[in-house]
């Protein structure tokens, strides 16, 4: 029987009160959102804390998807199921629905949250790859107010983020750029609901002439953190999208990533997937941008 080591349970009733608790309890306390990454780790005694602060009651305050003209804001307590079911979000950024369909299973998706996913900072995390693809920024709140960091700054290392012990991630902001855009996500997994062997997200913005104004690719499970690849963006900008360009992007992805051989596959196979999934998602993103 797997049971976490003993801890004191506290329940937060507001973001400010959660920050107050974190201030008081310091590094001996940890927030728990959906609990679907943290509780399994605590059951295996890979993580132990003296206090757990349950933030599920903050869903009212931090569970939302707000679409603005130049920005989409999503609250940290928004659950996977809500991201999957939002037609409005799928309209602007179809990459979210593509990814959510292949994250875990419907029951896990009822609990797991966007904030928990990003803060877990697992290199195989799908929503981190999505947020990297979309050039999202993260809003972190502490006793002294808010700060906003990019995804690159947010992920400090595997399982490590820029969120300090006395802070909470409250919101993700995604820029909405003008012009036609499209995005897509693809994942290769060993069985339904499993973590990625490799996954890729792509987003494309086209100008009036149908040329690539900007393009971004984010990969998961092929390095210490989910990785955005600036070299791909640079290679694609200004060109008319076609198959040879996707091939070039795939080749860059394969050579820029840093996979390791494990039970999910060899490094060589993962590089092959990074190439193939980059091409596939770019193709789909362009198709969506044009339609």
């Amino acid at each position, binding site marked *: 029987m797997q049971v976490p080591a003993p801890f004191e349970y506290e329940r937060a009733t507001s973001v400010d009160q959660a920050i107050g608790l974190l201030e008081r309890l310091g590094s001996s306390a940890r927030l728990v959102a959906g609990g679907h990454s943290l509780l399994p780790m605590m059951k295996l005694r890979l993580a132990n804390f003296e206090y757990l602060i349950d933030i599920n009651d903050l869903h009212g305050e931090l569970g939302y998807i707000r679409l603005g003209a130049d920005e989409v804001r999503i609250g940290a307590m928004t659950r996977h199921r809500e991201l999957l079911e939002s037609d409005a979000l799928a309209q602007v950024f179809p990459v979210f629905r593509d990814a959510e369909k292949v994250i875990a299973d419907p029951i*896990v998706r*009822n609990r797991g949250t966007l904030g928990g996913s990003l803060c877990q900072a697992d290199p195989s995390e799908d929503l981190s790859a999505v947020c990297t693809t979309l050039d999202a920024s993260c809003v972190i709140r502490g006793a002294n107010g808010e700060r906003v960091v990019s995804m690159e700054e947010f992920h400090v290392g595997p399982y490590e983020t820029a969120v300090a012990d006395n802070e909470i991630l409250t919101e993700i902001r995604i820029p909405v750029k003008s012009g036609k855009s499209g995005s897509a996500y693809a994942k290769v997994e060993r069985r339904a609901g499993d973590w990625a062997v490799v996954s890729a997200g792509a987003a494309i913005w086209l100008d009036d002439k149908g040329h690539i104004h900007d393009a971004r690719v984010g990969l998961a499970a092929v390095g210490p953190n989910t990785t955005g690849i600036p070299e791909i963006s640079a290679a694609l900008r200004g060109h008319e999208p076609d198959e040879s360009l996707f091939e070039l992007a795939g080749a860059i992805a394969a050579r820029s990533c840093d996979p390791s051989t494990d039970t999910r596959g060899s490094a060589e196979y993962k590089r092959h997937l990074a190439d193939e999934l980059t091409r596939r998602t770019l193709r789909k993103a362009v198709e969506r941008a044009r339609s």
Partner: protein
Amino acid sequence: MQVTVTVNGVEYTKEIEGRLLLVHFLRDTLGLTGTHWGCDTSNCGTCVVWMDGEPVKSCTVLAAMAGGREVRTVEGLANGAELDPIQEGFRQCHGLQCGFCTPGMLMTCRHLLDKNPDPTEGEIREAISGQICRCTGYSSIVRSVRWAAVHEAEAAETKEEAVAQ
């Protein structure tokens, strides 16, 4: 710590440890052993119960997290001696063999039918994709859910006719 949870409409107040998992609270503290406990790793789904109307894997929820919320377990499906249509479907179509996965399957499929009264085979398979059955095979579970869908629709029609008359 003290926790108050409503399970199948009955309010229970108990003294528990913060680390107690909901599945053990139901089975050991309350003696409601209908909910099963299998993989312990959120993969098999035999521990699925509803919390505030949504199916959750109770091996990955703290009992304390259920405080002030409404839980529904497999014991809450039947109305006295009358089985819920989903239970009757599993009985009619051989939806279980050893029965180990059944409580979780029933809770997930009941929720599916409440949201989508006429699910396709694909939708049923997607709904139970986070759950494992090692015996019966999924085909007869799909048939069982379809049985319940068809019979619920028929029952609703009969009721409407009766009201009309």
